[in-house]
Protein backbone atom coordinates (compact mmCIF):
# COMPACT_ATOMS: atom_id res chain seq x y z
CA UNK A 1 0.00 0.00 0.00
CA UNK A 2 1.37 3.41 -0.89
CA UNK A 3 1.52 6.58 1.18
CA UNK A 4 -1.18 8.12 -1.00
CA UNK A 5 -3.50 5.18 -0.32
CA UNK A 6 -2.78 5.67 3.40
CA UNK A 7 -3.75 9.33 3.07
CA UNK A 8 -6.98 8.40 1.26
CA UNK A 9 -7.90 5.94 4.00
CA UNK A 10 -7.27 8.61 6.65
CA UNK A 11 -9.71 10.92 4.84
CA UNK A 12 -12.18 8.01 4.69
CA UNK A 13 -11.80 7.42 8.45
CA UNK A 14 -12.43 11.12 9.17
CA UNK A 15 -15.54 10.97 6.95
CA UNK A 16 -16.71 7.93 8.93
CA UNK A 17 -16.38 9.91 12.16
CA UNK A 18 -18.46 12.71 10.65
CA UNK A 19 -21.00 10.17 9.36
CA UNK A 20 -21.21 8.59 12.82
CA UNK A 21 -21.85 11.94 14.49
CA UNK A 22 -24.44 12.79 11.80
CA UNK A 23 -26.24 9.49 12.49
CA UNK A 24 -26.40 10.34 16.20
CA UNK A 25 -27.87 13.74 15.29
CA UNK A 26 -30.44 12.18 12.95
CA UNK A 27 -31.43 9.63 15.60
CA UNK A 28 -31.88 12.42 18.16
CA UNK A 29 -33.87 14.46 15.59
CA UNK A 30 -31.44 17.33 15.85
CA UNK A 31 -30.16 19.42 13.00
CA UNK A 32 -26.97 18.19 11.41
CA UNK A 33 -24.43 20.94 11.63
CA UNK A 34 -21.47 22.21 13.54
CA UNK A 35 -20.55 19.00 15.37
CA UNK A 36 -20.31 16.99 12.15
CA UNK A 37 -17.99 19.52 10.53
CA UNK A 38 -15.96 19.95 13.72
CA UNK A 39 -15.48 16.19 14.14
CA UNK A 40 -14.32 15.83 10.54
CA UNK A 41 -11.99 18.80 10.94
CA UNK A 42 -10.43 17.46 14.17
CA UNK A 43 -9.91 13.95 12.76
CA UNK A 44 -8.44 15.16 9.49
CA UNK A 45 -6.15 17.63 11.30
CA UNK A 46 -4.86 15.13 13.86
CA UNK A 47 -4.33 12.11 11.63
CA UNK A 48 -3.43 14.16 8.56
CA UNK A 49 -0.65 15.89 10.51
CA UNK A 50 0.58 12.52 11.79
CA UNK A 51 0.56 11.23 8.22
CA UNK A 52 2.57 14.26 7.08
CA UNK A 53 5.08 13.67 9.90
CA UNK A 54 5.50 10.04 8.78
CA UNK A 55 6.12 11.22 5.21
CA UNK A 56 8.74 13.63 6.50
CA UNK A 57 10.55 11.60 9.20
CA UNK A 58 9.75 7.92 8.62
CA UNK A 59 8.99 7.61 4.89
CA UNK A 60 9.63 3.87 4.83
CA UNK A 61 7.38 3.25 7.85
CA UNK A 62 4.44 0.89 7.61
CA UNK A 63 1.34 2.55 6.07
CA UNK A 64 -1.27 0.35 7.77
CA UNK A 65 -1.24 1.52 11.37
CA UNK A 66 -2.43 5.12 11.11
CA UNK A 67 -5.62 4.39 9.08
CA UNK A 68 -6.57 1.57 11.49
CA UNK A 69 -5.97 3.79 14.53
CA UNK A 70 -7.94 6.58 12.85
CA UNK A 71 -10.94 4.32 12.19
CA UNK A 72 -10.92 3.02 15.79
CA UNK A 73 -10.79 6.60 17.04
CA UNK A 74 -13.65 7.52 14.66
CA UNK A 75 -15.97 4.78 15.89
CA UNK A 76 -14.96 5.49 19.50
CA UNK A 77 -15.54 9.23 19.11
CA UNK A 78 -18.99 8.73 17.50
CA UNK A 79 -20.03 6.48 20.37
CA UNK A 80 -18.65 8.85 23.03
CA UNK A 81 -20.49 11.73 21.30
CA UNK A 82 -23.65 9.69 21.55
CA UNK A 83 -23.10 8.98 25.26
CA UNK A 84 -21.77 12.27 26.54
CA UNK A 85 -21.34 15.46 24.50
CA UNK A 86 -18.99 17.08 26.99
CA UNK A 87 -16.64 14.08 27.03
CA UNK A 88 -16.71 13.99 23.23
CA UNK A 89 -15.47 17.56 22.93
CA UNK A 90 -12.71 16.84 25.47
CA UNK A 91 -11.84 13.67 23.57
CA UNK A 92 -11.35 15.78 20.41
CA UNK A 93 -8.77 17.82 22.28
CA UNK A 94 -7.05 14.66 23.49
CA UNK A 95 -6.93 13.26 19.95
CA UNK A 96 -5.22 16.46 18.81
CA UNK A 97 -2.77 16.38 21.74
CA UNK A 98 -2.09 12.66 21.21
CA UNK A 99 -1.38 13.14 17.51
CA UNK A 100 0.89 16.07 18.47
CA UNK A 101 2.89 13.85 20.82
CA UNK A 102 3.02 11.12 18.17
CA UNK A 103 4.51 13.69 15.77
CA UNK A 104 6.93 14.79 18.50
CA UNK A 105 7.99 11.15 18.95
CA UNK A 106 8.66 10.77 15.22
CA UNK A 107 10.63 14.02 15.21
CA UNK A 108 12.58 13.12 18.35
CA UNK A 109 13.61 9.76 16.94
CA UNK A 110 14.38 11.14 13.48
CA UNK A 111 17.99 12.16 14.04
CA UNK A 112 19.33 9.39 16.27
CA UNK A 113 16.79 6.63 15.74
CA UNK A 114 15.33 4.22 18.28
CA UNK A 115 18.88 3.39 19.36
CA UNK A 116 18.73 6.41 21.65
CA UNK A 117 16.23 4.45 23.76
CA UNK A 118 18.72 1.62 23.95
CA UNK A 119 21.48 3.83 25.32
CA UNK A 120 19.53 5.62 28.02
CA UNK A 121 17.75 2.58 29.42
CA UNK A 122 18.46 3.22 33.09
CA UNK A 123 17.26 6.81 32.80
CA UNK A 124 14.03 5.43 31.35
CA UNK A 125 13.72 2.92 34.18
CA UNK A 126 14.24 5.67 36.75
CA UNK A 127 11.66 7.87 35.01
CA UNK A 128 9.21 4.94 34.97
CA UNK A 129 9.69 4.37 38.72
CA UNK A 130 9.17 8.05 39.51
CA UNK A 131 6.03 8.22 37.34
CA UNK A 132 4.70 5.02 38.88
CA UNK A 133 5.08 6.44 42.39
CA UNK A 134 3.61 9.88 41.55
CA UNK A 135 -0.01 8.90 42.32
CA UNK A 136 1.08 8.01 45.86
CA UNK A 137 1.91 11.66 46.58
CA UNK A 138 -0.25 13.10 49.36
CA UNK A 139 -3.63 14.44 48.31
CA UNK A 140 -3.29 17.55 50.42
CA UNK A 141 0.07 19.27 50.56
CA UNK A 142 1.58 22.57 49.43
CA UNK A 143 3.14 21.47 46.11
CA UNK A 144 0.95 21.89 43.01
CA UNK A 145 1.39 18.22 41.99
CA UNK A 146 -0.76 15.80 44.00
CA UNK A 147 -1.90 12.22 44.07
CA UNK A 148 -5.58 11.58 43.48
CA UNK A 149 -7.82 8.70 44.55
CA UNK A 150 -10.55 7.88 42.02
CA UNK A 151 -12.97 5.00 42.71
CA UNK A 152 -10.61 3.52 45.27
CA UNK A 153 -7.59 3.31 42.96
CA UNK A 154 -4.52 5.49 43.34
CA UNK A 155 -3.78 5.90 39.62
CA UNK A 156 -4.22 9.58 39.03
CA UNK A 157 -2.01 12.59 39.38
CA UNK A 158 -3.38 16.08 39.48
CA UNK A 159 -1.22 18.97 38.32
CA UNK A 160 -2.66 22.28 39.45
CA UNK A 161 -0.98 25.20 37.74
CA UNK A 162 -3.33 27.76 39.25
CA UNK A 163 -5.10 28.67 36.02
CA UNK A 164 -5.70 25.06 34.89
CA UNK A 165 -5.92 21.69 36.59
CA UNK A 166 -4.74 18.72 34.58
CA UNK A 167 -5.32 15.11 35.54
CA UNK A 168 -3.43 12.20 34.08
CA UNK A 169 -2.63 8.54 34.68
CA UNK A 170 1.14 8.13 34.56
CA UNK A 171 0.71 4.33 34.33
CA UNK A 172 -0.05 4.56 30.62
CA UNK A 173 3.30 6.17 29.80
CA UNK A 174 5.13 3.94 32.31
CA UNK A 175 4.03 0.95 30.21
CA UNK A 176 5.95 2.30 27.20
CA UNK A 177 9.04 3.20 29.24
CA UNK A 178 9.17 -0.25 30.84
CA UNK A 179 8.83 -2.00 27.47
CA UNK A 180 11.65 0.12 26.00
CA UNK A 181 13.83 -0.57 29.04
CA UNK A 182 13.18 -4.32 28.86
CA UNK A 183 13.92 -4.43 25.13
CA UNK A 184 17.27 -2.78 25.73
CA UNK A 185 18.08 -4.86 28.81
CA UNK A 186 17.12 -8.18 27.22
CA UNK A 187 18.82 -7.42 23.89
CA UNK A 188 22.07 -7.19 25.82
CA UNK A 189 21.51 -10.19 28.08
CA UNK A 190 20.07 -12.49 25.46
CA UNK A 191 23.05 -14.84 25.28
CA UNK A 192 23.23 -15.38 29.05
CA UNK A 193 19.48 -15.85 29.35
CA UNK A 194 19.34 -18.38 26.53
CA UNK A 195 22.14 -20.52 27.90
CA UNK A 196 20.84 -23.53 29.81
CA UNK A 197 22.92 -25.10 32.49
CA UNK A 198 20.52 -27.04 34.67
CA UNK A 199 17.93 -29.60 33.79
CA UNK A 200 14.95 -30.50 35.95
CA UNK A 201 12.69 -33.03 34.26
CA UNK A 202 11.59 -31.70 30.86
CA UNK A 203 12.59 -28.12 31.70
CA UNK A 204 16.01 -26.65 31.18
CA UNK A 205 16.94 -23.76 33.40
CA UNK A 206 19.54 -21.03 32.96
CA UNK A 207 21.80 -19.98 35.82
CA UNK A 208 19.60 -19.25 38.86
CA UNK A 209 20.86 -15.67 39.08
CA UNK A 210 19.38 -15.01 35.62
CA UNK A 211 16.00 -15.52 37.27
CA UNK A 212 16.53 -12.54 39.57
CA UNK A 213 15.05 -9.98 37.12
CA UNK A 214 11.86 -12.08 36.88
CA UNK A 215 11.46 -12.02 40.64
CA UNK A 216 12.10 -8.28 40.73
CA UNK A 217 9.43 -7.74 38.06
CA UNK A 218 7.04 -9.93 39.99
CA UNK A 219 7.50 -7.99 43.22
CA UNK A 220 7.23 -4.67 41.38
CA UNK A 221 3.96 -5.57 39.68
CA UNK A 222 2.63 -7.00 42.92
CA UNK A 223 3.56 -3.71 44.57
CA UNK A 224 1.56 -1.80 41.98
CA UNK A 225 -1.46 -3.92 42.81
CA UNK A 226 -1.13 -3.61 46.56
CA UNK A 227 -0.39 0.11 46.80
CA UNK A 228 -2.35 1.44 43.84
CA UNK A 229 -5.09 -1.19 43.78
CA UNK A 230 -4.69 -1.49 40.05
CA UNK A 231 -5.19 -5.06 38.85
CA UNK A 232 -5.02 -4.27 35.15
CA UNK A 233 -1.74 -2.38 35.19
CA UNK A 234 0.03 -4.93 37.38
CA UNK A 235 -1.13 -7.83 35.18
CA UNK A 236 -0.10 -5.90 32.06
CA UNK A 237 3.38 -5.10 33.38
CA UNK A 238 4.11 -8.63 34.51
CA UNK A 239 2.79 -10.28 31.33
CA UNK A 240 4.74 -7.86 29.14
CA UNK A 241 7.87 -8.80 31.03
CA UNK A 242 7.33 -12.56 30.66
CA UNK A 243 6.33 -12.24 27.00
CA UNK A 244 9.48 -10.26 26.22
CA UNK A 245 11.70 -12.75 28.08
CA UNK A 246 10.12 -15.46 25.97
CA UNK A 247 10.51 -13.45 22.75
CA UNK A 248 14.18 -12.82 23.53
CA UNK A 249 15.12 -16.38 24.41
CA UNK A 250 12.50 -18.72 22.92
CA UNK A 251 12.71 -20.78 26.14
CA UNK A 252 9.45 -22.25 27.48
CA UNK A 253 10.95 -22.25 30.96
CA UNK A 254 10.20 -18.54 31.33
CA UNK A 255 6.54 -19.09 30.42
CA UNK A 256 6.25 -21.91 32.98
CA UNK A 257 8.00 -19.95 35.75
CA UNK A 258 6.03 -16.81 34.86
CA UNK A 259 2.74 -18.71 34.82
CA UNK A 260 3.55 -20.26 38.20
CA UNK A 261 4.41 -16.89 39.75
CA UNK A 262 1.24 -15.40 38.26
CA UNK A 263 -0.88 -18.14 39.81
CA UNK A 264 0.73 -17.65 43.22
CA UNK A 265 0.24 -13.87 42.94
CA UNK A 266 -3.38 -14.21 41.80
CA UNK A 267 -4.32 -16.58 44.64
CA UNK A 268 -2.54 -14.38 47.19
CA UNK A 269 -4.32 -11.28 45.85
CA UNK A 270 -7.67 -13.04 45.91
CA UNK A 271 -7.33 -14.13 49.52
CA UNK A 272 -5.93 -10.83 50.76
CA UNK A 273 -7.88 -8.07 48.98
CA UNK A 274 -11.57 -7.42 49.06
CA UNK A 275 -11.54 -5.53 45.75
CA UNK A 276 -10.12 -8.59 43.99
CA UNK A 277 -12.82 -10.80 45.54
CA UNK A 278 -15.45 -8.31 44.38
CA UNK A 279 -14.17 -8.48 40.81
CA UNK A 280 -14.17 -12.25 40.83
CA UNK A 281 -17.68 -12.41 42.27
CA UNK A 282 -18.96 -9.99 39.61
CA UNK A 283 -17.32 -12.11 36.92
CA UNK A 284 -18.64 -15.50 38.04
CA UNK A 285 -22.17 -14.47 39.00
CA UNK A 286 -23.05 -11.00 37.68
CA UNK A 287 -26.81 -11.58 37.75
CA UNK A 288 -26.82 -12.88 41.34
CA UNK A 289 -25.13 -9.66 42.38
CA UNK A 290 -27.11 -7.48 39.98
CA UNK A 291 -27.94 -4.80 42.55
CA UNK A 292 -24.36 -4.44 43.71
CA UNK A 293 -21.11 -5.61 42.17
CA UNK A 294 -22.56 -7.25 39.05
CA UNK A 295 -24.52 -4.18 37.93
CA UNK A 296 -22.04 -2.88 35.39
CA UNK A 297 -21.22 -6.25 33.80
CA UNK A 298 -24.90 -7.29 33.68
CA UNK A 299 -25.90 -4.08 31.92
CA UNK A 300 -23.03 -4.49 29.47
CA UNK A 301 -24.37 -7.93 28.59
CA UNK A 302 -27.95 -6.65 28.27
CA UNK A 303 -26.69 -3.93 25.94
CA UNK A 304 -24.82 -6.33 23.67
CA UNK A 305 -27.77 -8.74 23.67
CA UNK A 306 -30.23 -6.04 22.64
CA UNK A 307 -27.82 -5.05 19.85
CA UNK A 308 -28.26 -8.46 18.27
CA UNK A 309 -26.79 -8.97 14.80
CA UNK A 310 -26.58 -5.51 13.26
CA UNK A 311 -27.30 -3.32 16.29
CA UNK A 312 -29.94 -0.72 17.05
CA UNK A 313 -28.14 1.93 15.03
CA UNK A 314 -26.01 4.79 16.36
CA UNK A 315 -27.97 6.91 18.79
CA UNK A 316 -30.94 4.50 18.88
CA UNK A 317 -29.97 2.12 21.69
CA UNK A 318 -29.82 2.82 25.40
CA UNK A 319 -26.12 2.34 26.19
CA UNK A 320 -26.15 5.13 28.76
CA UNK A 321 -27.68 2.61 31.19
CA UNK A 322 -24.22 1.06 31.55
CA UNK A 323 -22.07 2.55 34.28
CA UNK A 324 -18.84 4.16 33.00
CA UNK A 325 -19.82 3.42 29.39
CA UNK A 326 -17.46 5.96 27.69
CA UNK A 327 -14.37 4.74 29.55
CA UNK A 328 -14.57 1.09 30.62
CA UNK A 329 -17.54 -0.18 28.63
CA UNK A 330 -17.25 1.54 25.26
CA UNK A 331 -17.10 -1.89 23.60
CA UNK A 332 -20.48 -2.90 25.06
CA UNK A 333 -21.99 0.41 23.89
CA UNK A 334 -20.66 -0.19 20.36
CA UNK A 335 -21.94 -3.76 20.59
CA UNK A 336 -25.42 -2.45 21.31
CA UNK A 337 -25.56 0.17 18.58
CA UNK A 338 -23.55 -1.54 15.81
CA UNK A 339 -24.37 -5.13 16.78
CA UNK A 340 -22.35 -8.29 16.45
CA UNK A 341 -21.16 -7.29 12.97
CA UNK A 342 -19.80 -3.97 14.21
CA UNK A 343 -18.14 -5.61 17.23
CA UNK A 344 -16.44 -8.23 15.07
CA UNK A 345 -15.20 -5.47 12.74
CA UNK A 346 -13.73 -3.68 15.76
CA UNK A 347 -12.02 -6.92 16.82
CA UNK A 348 -10.71 -7.30 13.26
CA UNK A 349 -9.15 -3.81 13.44
CA UNK A 350 -7.33 -4.71 16.66
CA UNK A 351 -6.25 -8.04 15.16
CA UNK A 352 -4.87 -6.23 12.10
CA UNK A 353 -2.92 -3.73 14.21
CA UNK A 354 -1.47 -6.62 16.25
CA UNK A 355 -0.55 -8.61 13.15
CA UNK A 356 1.16 -5.59 11.58
CA UNK A 357 3.08 -4.94 14.83
CA UNK A 358 4.15 -8.56 15.22
CA UNK A 359 5.07 -8.64 11.52
CA UNK A 360 7.42 -5.72 12.13
CA UNK A 361 8.93 -7.56 15.10
CA UNK A 362 9.35 -10.83 13.17
CA UNK A 363 11.04 -9.15 10.24
CA UNK A 364 13.29 -6.86 12.29
CA UNK A 365 16.91 -7.91 12.12
CA UNK A 366 18.21 -5.90 15.05
CA UNK A 367 17.36 -7.67 18.31
CA UNK A 368 16.60 -4.46 20.21
CA UNK A 369 14.13 -3.22 17.60
CA UNK A 370 12.65 -6.70 17.36
CA UNK A 371 12.01 -6.87 21.10
CA UNK A 372 10.77 -3.28 21.23
CA UNK A 373 8.23 -3.90 18.44
CA UNK A 374 7.17 -7.22 19.98
CA UNK A 375 6.80 -5.70 23.47
CA UNK A 376 4.84 -2.65 22.29
CA UNK A 377 2.51 -4.78 20.19
CA UNK A 378 2.08 -7.28 23.00
CA UNK A 379 1.03 -4.67 25.56
CA UNK A 380 -1.34 -3.09 23.03
CA UNK A 381 -2.88 -6.46 22.19
CA UNK A 382 -3.10 -7.72 25.75
CA UNK A 383 -4.72 -4.49 26.89
CA UNK A 384 -7.39 -4.75 24.18
CA UNK A 385 -7.92 -8.44 24.95
CA UNK A 386 -8.20 -7.94 28.71
CA UNK A 387 -10.80 -5.17 28.57
CA UNK A 388 -12.89 -6.74 25.78
CA UNK A 389 -12.58 -10.13 27.49
CA UNK A 390 -13.68 -8.48 30.74
CA UNK A 391 -16.77 -7.00 29.07
CA UNK A 392 -17.87 -10.26 27.43
CA UNK A 393 -17.07 -12.17 30.67
CA UNK A 394 -14.16 -14.17 29.35
CA UNK A 395 -11.99 -12.84 32.20
CA UNK A 396 -12.67 -10.91 35.38
CA UNK A 397 -13.00 -7.22 34.59
CA UNK A 398 -9.86 -5.14 34.93
CA UNK A 399 -10.37 -1.42 34.77
CA UNK A 400 -8.19 -0.61 31.77
CA UNK A 401 -9.03 1.38 28.69
CA UNK A 402 -9.68 0.14 25.17
CA UNK A 403 -6.90 1.65 23.02
CA UNK A 404 -8.02 4.54 20.75
CA UNK A 405 -11.72 4.02 21.52
CA UNK A 406 -12.23 4.64 25.24
CA UNK A 407 -12.58 8.16 26.53
CA UNK A 408 -9.38 9.11 28.32
CA UNK A 409 -6.46 11.36 27.63
CA UNK A 410 -3.51 9.46 29.09
CA UNK A 411 -4.45 6.29 27.26
CA UNK A 412 -4.96 8.04 23.91
CA UNK A 413 -1.69 9.92 24.19
CA UNK A 414 0.25 6.78 25.14
CA UNK A 415 -1.21 4.81 22.24
CA UNK A 416 -0.40 7.54 19.73
CA UNK A 417 3.21 7.43 20.95
CA UNK A 418 3.16 3.62 20.74
CA UNK A 419 1.97 3.67 17.10
CA UNK A 420 4.57 6.34 16.25
CA UNK A 421 7.32 4.14 17.73
CA UNK A 422 6.16 1.10 15.75
CA UNK A 423 6.16 3.15 12.54
CA UNK A 424 9.65 4.43 13.32
CA UNK A 425 10.93 0.87 13.93
CA UNK A 426 9.45 -0.34 10.64
CA UNK A 427 11.08 2.66 8.92
CA UNK A 428 14.49 1.78 10.34
CA UNK A 429 14.10 -1.89 9.50
CA UNK A 430 12.56 -1.23 6.06
CA UNK A 431 9.84 -3.81 6.64
Amino acid sequence: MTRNAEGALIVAAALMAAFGVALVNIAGQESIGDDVALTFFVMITAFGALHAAVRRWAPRGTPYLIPLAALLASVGLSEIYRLNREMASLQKWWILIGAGLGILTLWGLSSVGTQILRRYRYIMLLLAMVLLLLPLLPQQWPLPIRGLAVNGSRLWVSLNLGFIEMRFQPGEIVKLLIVAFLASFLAERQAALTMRTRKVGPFEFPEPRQMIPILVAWFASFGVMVYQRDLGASLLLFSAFIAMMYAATGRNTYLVVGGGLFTVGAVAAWSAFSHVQTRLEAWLAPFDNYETTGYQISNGIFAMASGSLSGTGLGLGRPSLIAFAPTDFIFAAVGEELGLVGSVLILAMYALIISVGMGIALRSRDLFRKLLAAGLTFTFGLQSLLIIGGIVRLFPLTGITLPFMSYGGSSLVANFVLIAMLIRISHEERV
Partner: protein
Amino acid sequence: MTEFILALLKLIFIALLFLFVWQIARAIGSHLGGFERRTKSKPGSEIVFVRSDNQSGLDFTVDDVVVVGRSDQADIYLDDSYASEFHLRFSSIDGGLVLQDLGSTNGTYVNGRRIGSPVGLSKGDAVQVGKTVMEVR
Protein backbone atom coordinates in the same frame (compact mmCIF):
# COMPACT_ATOMS: atom_id res chain seq x y z
CA MET B 1 -40.67 5.53 6.66
CA THR B 2 -38.20 7.21 9.05
CA GLU B 3 -37.50 3.83 10.62
CA PHE B 4 -36.67 2.41 7.23
CA ILE B 5 -34.25 5.26 6.49
CA LEU B 6 -32.57 4.88 9.89
CA ALA B 7 -32.10 1.14 9.38
CA LEU B 8 -30.70 1.80 5.91
CA LEU B 9 -28.24 4.39 7.25
CA LYS B 10 -27.14 1.96 9.96
CA LEU B 11 -26.44 -0.74 7.41
CA ILE B 12 -24.56 1.73 5.17
CA PHE B 13 -22.39 2.73 8.15
CA ILE B 14 -21.54 -0.91 8.94
CA ALA B 15 -20.93 -1.71 5.27
CA LEU B 16 -18.49 1.21 5.02
CA LEU B 17 -16.66 -0.01 8.13
CA PHE B 18 -16.41 -3.43 6.52
CA LEU B 19 -15.11 -2.03 3.23
CA PHE B 20 -12.42 -0.06 5.06
CA VAL B 21 -11.23 -3.04 7.12
CA TRP B 22 -11.36 -5.32 4.08
CA GLN B 23 -9.21 -2.92 2.02
CA ILE B 24 -6.50 -2.81 4.69
CA ALA B 25 -6.65 -6.56 5.39
CA ARG B 26 -6.18 -7.28 1.69
CA ALA B 27 -3.22 -4.91 1.44
CA ILE B 28 -1.59 -6.46 4.52
CA GLY B 29 -2.24 -9.95 3.14
CA SER B 30 -0.44 -9.25 -0.12
CA HIS B 31 2.44 -7.62 1.79
CA LEU B 32 2.90 -10.68 4.02
CA GLY B 33 2.57 -13.07 1.07
CA GLY B 34 5.44 -11.32 -0.72
CA PHE B 35 7.58 -11.64 2.37
CA GLU B 36 7.05 -15.40 2.65
CA ARG B 37 8.04 -16.05 -0.94
CA ARG B 38 11.25 -14.09 -0.52
CA THR B 39 12.50 -16.00 2.51
CA LYS B 40 11.63 -19.38 1.05
CA SER B 41 13.63 -18.92 -2.14
CA LYS B 42 16.79 -17.63 -0.42
CA PRO B 43 17.84 -19.30 2.79
CA GLY B 44 20.22 -16.69 4.22
CA SER B 45 23.36 -16.90 6.31
CA GLU B 46 23.18 -15.95 9.94
CA ILE B 47 25.57 -13.44 11.49
CA VAL B 48 25.98 -13.27 15.28
CA PHE B 49 27.69 -10.59 17.37
CA VAL B 50 30.01 -12.70 19.52
CA ARG B 51 31.98 -9.84 21.09
CA SER B 52 30.68 -6.34 21.61
CA ASP B 53 30.34 -3.71 24.35
CA ASN B 54 26.59 -3.46 24.15
CA GLN B 55 25.33 -5.80 21.48
CA SER B 56 26.63 -9.29 22.32
CA GLY B 57 24.24 -11.97 21.17
CA LEU B 58 22.50 -9.79 18.56
CA ASP B 59 21.92 -11.83 15.42
CA PHE B 60 20.53 -11.21 11.97
CA THR B 61 20.20 -13.10 8.72
CA VAL B 62 21.44 -11.97 5.34
CA ASP B 63 18.92 -12.95 2.69
CA ASP B 64 19.64 -10.07 0.34
CA VAL B 65 21.84 -7.09 1.22
CA VAL B 66 22.56 -5.85 4.74
CA VAL B 67 24.50 -2.65 5.47
CA VAL B 68 26.07 -2.43 8.92
CA GLY B 69 27.20 0.87 10.42
CA ARG B 70 26.91 3.51 13.11
CA SER B 71 24.19 5.46 11.28
CA ASP B 72 20.53 4.88 12.05
CA GLN B 73 20.04 4.63 8.31
CA ALA B 74 22.11 1.43 8.29
CA ASP B 75 20.16 -1.86 8.30
CA ILE B 76 22.01 -3.02 11.39
CA TYR B 77 23.10 -0.40 13.87
CA LEU B 78 26.63 -0.96 15.14
CA ASP B 79 27.22 0.49 18.62
CA ASP B 80 30.99 0.87 18.35
CA SER B 81 32.82 4.19 18.34
CA TYR B 82 35.41 2.81 15.89
CA ALA B 83 32.77 2.03 13.27
CA SER B 84 31.92 4.33 10.38
CA GLU B 85 28.41 5.53 9.54
CA PHE B 86 28.08 2.93 6.79
CA HIS B 87 30.87 0.54 7.56
CA LEU B 88 30.42 -2.68 5.64
CA ARG B 89 27.97 -4.60 3.54
CA PHE B 90 27.01 -8.27 3.57
CA SER B 91 25.44 -9.52 0.34
CA SER B 92 23.97 -12.87 -0.48
CA ILE B 93 25.06 -13.75 -4.04
CA ASP B 94 24.07 -17.09 -5.56
CA GLY B 95 23.76 -18.68 -2.12
CA GLY B 96 27.20 -17.49 -1.04
CA LEU B 97 27.91 -14.68 1.44
CA VAL B 98 30.09 -11.75 0.32
CA LEU B 99 31.54 -9.04 2.58
CA GLN B 100 32.55 -5.62 1.31
CA ASP B 101 34.10 -2.73 3.25
CA LEU B 102 32.34 0.53 2.33
CA GLY B 103 35.45 2.69 2.62
CA SER B 104 35.42 2.77 6.42
CA THR B 105 37.95 4.81 8.40
CA ASN B 106 39.20 2.02 10.65
CA GLY B 107 38.79 -0.91 8.29
CA THR B 108 37.23 -4.35 8.46
CA TYR B 109 39.13 -7.48 9.47
CA VAL B 110 38.29 -11.05 8.51
CA ASN B 111 39.96 -13.64 10.74
CA GLY B 112 42.47 -10.97 11.77
CA ARG B 113 43.38 -9.78 8.27
CA ARG B 114 42.29 -6.37 6.97
CA ILE B 115 40.32 -6.62 3.75
CA GLY B 116 40.70 -4.38 0.71
CA SER B 117 38.41 -5.84 -1.90
CA PRO B 118 35.14 -7.79 -1.39
CA VAL B 119 35.72 -11.27 0.02
CA GLY B 120 33.59 -14.39 0.18
CA LEU B 121 32.79 -15.66 3.69
CA SER B 122 32.15 -19.17 4.92
CA LYS B 123 30.73 -20.52 8.19
CA GLY B 124 32.88 -19.80 11.23
CA ASP B 125 34.62 -16.74 9.76
CA ALA B 126 35.09 -13.91 12.25
CA VAL B 127 34.48 -10.35 11.03
CA GLN B 128 35.96 -7.62 13.25
CA VAL B 129 35.09 -3.92 13.28
CA GLY B 130 36.72 -1.86 16.03
CA LYS B 131 36.00 -3.75 19.24
CA THR B 132 33.12 -5.73 17.78
CA VAL B 133 33.41 -9.27 16.42
CA MET B 134 30.70 -10.90 14.31
CA GLU B 135 30.71 -14.56 13.40
CA VAL B 136 29.13 -16.29 10.41
CA ARG B 137 26.97 -19.21 11.50
